[in-house]
């Protein structure tokens, strides 16, 4: 990943979903928090824009993998916090395994 800009541009939907689930696996976060967490997790390679992040959050919530609730933020602002549901945790496990398979296959293919 030497060209983060182009990597950012091609953030696949499935990848974003997986990253969101991963970001939330360690605890609840609000929308912006998810974005920052993903940036940290990927070492700055991915920084999802609100235009794609928020629709994804709502989609995952409607799928039953996330739950949301209003709470007060660290700066004393009201914010909507997302947490992983049981189904979400299972989904994370599945997607993670899936991703590893694909990544391994891709790596092997590109090496050969």
């Amino acid at each position, binding site marked *: 990943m030497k060209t983060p800009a182009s990597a950012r541009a091609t953030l696949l939907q499935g990848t974003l979903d997986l990253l969101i689930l991963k970001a939330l696996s360690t605890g609840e976060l*609000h*929308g*912006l928090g998810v974005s920052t967490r993903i940036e940290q997790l990927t070492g700055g390679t991915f920084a999802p*824009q*609100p*235009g*794609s992040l*928020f*629709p*994804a959050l*709502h*989609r995952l*919530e*409607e*799928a*039953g993998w996330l739950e949301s609730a*209003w709470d007060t*933020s660290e*700066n004393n*602002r*009201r*914010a*909507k916090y997302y947490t992983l549901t049981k*189904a979400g945790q299972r989904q994370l496990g599945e997607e993670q395994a899936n991703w590893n398979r694909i990544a391994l296959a891709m790596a092997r293919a590109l090496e050969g």
Partner: protein
Amino acid sequence: MPVLPRLAALWRNLVHRRRVERDLDDELRSTIEMLVDAKLRQGMRPEDARRAAAIELGGVTVVRQQIREVKAGAGLASLLEDLRYGVRALRRSPLFTLTAVSSLGVGMAGVAVVFGLADAYLLRYPPGLADPARLAEVGRLRLAGGNPSDDAGFNTFSYPNFREYRTRQTVFDGLAAYHLGGLARFGLGTGHEAVPVLGAYVSANYFDVLGVSIARGRGFSADDERLDQARAVVVISHRLWQTQFNGAADVIGRTVRLNGRPFTVIGVTSRDFAGYGLEEQRLWVPLTAYPDGDDLTLVASRGRQWLMGIGRLKPGVGLEQARDQMARIAADLAREFPDDNKDHGLGVEPTGVLPVDGREAVHLFVGLLFALVGLVMLIACFTTAGLLLARGVTRAPELGLRLALGAARARVVRLLVIESLTIALTGAVVAVALAWLGTSLLVSAIPTAPNRNIQLAWGLGWRVVAFSIGLATVVGLVCGLVPAWTATRPMLASALSRERGGSAPRLRARAAFVVAQVALSVLLVVCALLLTRSMRHAAGIDPGFRMDGLEVVGIDLRLGGYDEPRGRILADELIRRVESLPNVRAAGSARVVPLTREREGGRFWLPGEFGPEKMIDGSQNIVSRGFFDALGLPLLAGRQFAATDRVGAPAVAIVNETLARQMWPGQEAVGKKILVGRSRWPLDVVGVVKDAKYRTIGESPSPFFYVPATLRYEPVQWIIVRPASASVIADVRAVIRTLDPNLPVTRSGALAELTAFTLFPQRLVTWLATIVAATGVFLAALGVYGIAAYHASLRTREIGIRVALGAARGQAVKLVLLQTGRLAVVGIALGLSAAALLTRFLDGMLYGVRPLDPVSFAGAALVLGSLAVIAGLIPARRAASVNPVEALRAQ
């Protein structure tokens, strides 16, 4: 994706829409605030922080829209939103909505009425049958060289043939035969006054094959159809049971009189069954119970063709397979019994309400009606499309703004199409209401057939409603798409500026709509004028006798159980008594009532010429002495029939002018002889009467002769009376009742009323064409006015400048008029060309008017031309009268 949470989300999004939206707004707002907080912490100035935050989020409205679109039921929710918006927009411009809805409503109503007619008579089966799609009709075809001839028909066959068909065929689960019409008219006596009842002679398996359930008693068994031992049993319809027997529980086993002979009632059919055929039947008797009693020649003779067949196809057997087998059976019978079966085949056709040989004509007629109402619907579509285009122009700024704010073009097109769909569906409601009204008017206007027991009547079913909704959807899409597409053509800059000029393609589309409207209206007006002129022509045709005031009363002596000797006595006495009624000026009897489309064939030869090529195909009527006086038909030479013209005396005839002129040009016809019919019956011509119209008002003169009723007995007779003043029908009926209470009157009324039936199809098409053309012209005028007003408004500024520079106002008017004039001329030319191509399809309906009648064509051009001028003149004058200063300032 899991289904359950998704459904819960859908419920939440649709039902608690407000709360979900508010929640979303809060979330986005809090996100922005947090972003601003972050920027502030980085040391930005507050304004910069806000701007940076907004940029980072990427536009709150856009993000909100993106989120909405991933939510469950997004499509539905936004559709509802568009619908709400559309309805609101339509409520804001009531005049536009009213015009569009009413023109589409009127346009679709016509189509719905005709669809209702087609649905009732072409698409349905007679009621009361089980699985009617598996039934098929069997009829006899004329063959030419082994194949069905051009006039193959679909005709009756003999009873011996039927028995062969029934036993040899293997394609039907059962094959039944029935006889309707002539022989199956009964005089039903149940004690008091006899009533005429239409029934049918049927084979014993008739009810089984049709799958008719018998509500009471039993149907026929094989024993009821026996040649050696005729059984006088009858099954009656539920309706007859109710009307004639008051629904008596003990009706089974009762004895009734049919044409004077006793029959035992053995069954009552289920409520919805009224016989197979267009005419309602009320009773059924076995084929072998022929009421001329013990006379069984009809059933025994292979030469008497009187039965139609109907069979239930075996599972897996198709029409083609049945056709093949029946054709083979017919070919075998033609070999075995060549005398009666040569050159005849068998046909198998699907079942339906209409008789097989009448279907093609009805299809053509209904097709013509569809063409007429379809044209008006097209015009209505063009009107609405034009209105929508114009509306698109006035709404350009609003639509431009939507597009500029990032709405997808498809989304805006959808919004506009939803609007036109709303208009069309509202139009459908109007259409169904109008169609209901139209159908009831139409049904009440249909006269009853004089010699058939057919009452055409139908209502609007759910199929018509479904059809209207489907039609409206198509119409709404078609009318809405083009205007929506052109209205959203991306021209943001010009739309957002105050300039309201329509783009070239938009104008072209509108002009094309108006041209099409004018052209279709011209076509309709040509048709309407042709038909109206033809009707006037028909009304102006002299039938050859005085029709007004004439009254007729029909009897069928067989229905009273009369044989020839007794029938003659009764008929003589009846005429004598009617003639002596106080208010009767003249009275006579006839076998055929003029102008009811009925015809009694009269082939004849001249003495010494016997070959078939010398045969003259004339017609005849069997009349009593008073007939000519009653009709007012003047005698031109010779004498009238006299009391001395009786059996035993020399047989005589009176001929018409045409026959006399054609047979003996330049000679005296009285004293000549004609030889009538297969038996070459010689008749002395004793008189010549003026030509008249016999079958229809439009026919051309043909050879016709009259035979005195005293010479040839006919059980079917019509008493024709010319009253001195008031109607005498009641008196004539009273005479019949006193002579024989068991003899029913088959039909009575004014002659004009009875003959109305013969011209009804033409009259209906004429009415319809006139209404349709008037509607079309009105809508076209609206279209022309609209485009003229629009042109004028576009050029107000230019006209202002011209007037300011000293141009005469007349010139300004000319400017606008020229533009609309051009469209009108193109439309009229197109319409006339289309009419020239299409009016020949009306030929069969026209009397004394040619399809290319110049008067109708010129008239249509004139009507549309002058309307276009008027419709153009109003806005043109308004534009020209504008104050130049204001015109310049306005833009």
